């Protein structure tokens, strides 16, 4: 069985008695996430991707359908804290996630809540801060850091809990480009070196390209899923749902339309340059 498996998940924010038509924020979504995977979930604002993220660590419970984390049902209240220890959730606004006035004390907050031994907390905090390259800033005040640095501290805070999986709900939405790339390279490092499962909710296509697998959501349902190559070669489908494609894929698609022969859709700038070189020959 996959590490996280979602079966026919439906969820609505509206009350049953609400007179308005009943709209599901997540509608009949099924998804499997295996251990060690880097999964990106993309889609418009309001397509249900954040709601989906909050189901993965039992912050929200399904109206119908099931979510299993490592074999445990999220609806089982006795398992809630076990699940939150296994799946950490990083939110969009880094300011609102840091609870202590000193970086290292903030990172210690999670393990402190779990009742971990002080010496072990110290060790976890140091290794979490080193993993996100924020060790030199351990004595700083969070409000003196840049957005990207704050978000990396927030990731370290989750990392110190030693989860198997980190879910990030648009962690780069409030960051500038350099902050975004800091966060992305940290996530890739954690995934490759520590084998932590990453679920990245984003609306930046350039970030989704770096994932192992991409799930596209549109109006509460899964539109398509596959490797970045598979997903972004369906340029027509994505365009129909007013979703962006990476610039390189877009260029290749248009060149194809003009009759240029291209076998593989490029995803990154480097790929694109290679593709153009080949096409020129």
């Amino acid at each position, binding site marked *: 069985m996959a590490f996280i498996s979602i079966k026919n998940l439906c969820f609505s924010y509206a009350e049953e008695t609400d007179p308005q038509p009943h709209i599901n924020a997540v509608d009949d979504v099924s998804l499997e996430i295996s251990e060690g995977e880097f999964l990106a979930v993309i889609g418009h604002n309001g397509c249900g991707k954040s709601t989906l993220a909050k189901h993965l*660590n039992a*912050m929200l419970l399904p109206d119908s359908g099931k979510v299993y984390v490592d074999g445990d049902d999220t609806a089982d209240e006795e398992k809630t*804290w076990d699940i*939150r*220890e296994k799946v*950490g*959730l990083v*939110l969009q*606004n880094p*300011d*609102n*996630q*840091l*609870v*202590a*006035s*000193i970086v*290292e*004390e903030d990172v*210690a*907050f*999670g*393990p*402190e*809540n*779990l*009742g*971990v*031994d*002080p010496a072990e*907390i*110290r060790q976890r*905090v140091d290794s979490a801060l080193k993993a996100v390259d924020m060790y030199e800033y351990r*004595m*700083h*005040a*969070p*409000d003196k850091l840049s957005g990207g640095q704050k978000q990396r501290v*927030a990731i370290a*805070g*989750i990392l110190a*809990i030693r989860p198997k999986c980190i879910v990030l709900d648009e962690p780069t939405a409030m960051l500038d480009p350099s902050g975004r790339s800091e966060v992305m390279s940290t996530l890739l490092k954690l995934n490759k070196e520590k084998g932590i499962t990453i679920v990245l909710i984003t609306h930046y296509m350039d970030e989704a390209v770096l994932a192992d697998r991409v799930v596209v959501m549109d109006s509460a349902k899964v539109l398509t899923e596959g490797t970045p190559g598979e997903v972004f070669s369906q340029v027509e489908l994505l365009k129909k749902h007013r979703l962006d494609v990476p610039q390189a894929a877009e260029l290749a698609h248009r060149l194809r339309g003009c009759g240029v022969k291209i076998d593989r859709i490029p995803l990154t700038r480097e790929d694109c340059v290679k593709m153009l070189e080949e096409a020129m020959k």
Partner: protein
Amino acid sequence: MVRDVSFGQYFPGNSIIHKLDPRGKILMFIAYIVIIFCAFNYASLAITTAFIAFVLILTKIPFKFYLKSLKVIIFIVIFTSVLNLFYGAGEPLWQWWILKITWDGINRAVFVSVRITCLIIASSCLTFTTSPTELTDAIERLMKPLKAIHFPVHEVAMMMSLALRFIPTLLEETDKIMSAQKARGANTDSGNIIKRVKALVPILIPLFVSAFRRAYDIAMAMECRCYRGGAGRTRMKSIHMGARDTVSFIATALVIAGVIVCNIMIPAVV
């Protein structure tokens, strides 16, 4: 503009004062406040002033930060000492209309200004060298006996540390809202007092709304990090008393003893 406040800030460092047990620091701070107001003659006042000056040097924090924290209350110091100057009893040294200056008044003015200054320096020494987490941690432990009467000790300490954490964030936000409202033509610094108070409404309402939204986010982030109240929590930095704490207690006790002895030996001037 509003961010330029050094009172209540923490400066990370490695001095002896930084390393003292925060519980001890709080207790000594309270003892010191009491003793300042029990200094009734110049000798005891000198002892208390010398003591805080010594502590200030030990903190190894640049003097200008202490000056900055004094700047906030300098007006209060001047105001109260001027009031005291004219309220003394006894033979007037100088008199004009109903205003008279006496030796008693001068003494009172000196005592009041020195006491307030020492008080602010002492509280700066405490907050500059103790991180808010240490401070609230210490308060939580000192208040532990209150748990017996069902006082929510952990919750109060948690609220205090969150409040301290978000002071700079909310100040920054106030700045932003003020700029945004100014950009829309709001006028906050002219007109009479009623107009000015009314002009604060469009700043306070967005600030409150965003503070509540933030609170909701923070609660969620805390739950994500397995926070479920004080039960079963451990601490990374366990605080314990050491030799240096004993030394600091002895020093404080000596100052208290010195003040008491001076008070007995030398007649009071105020």
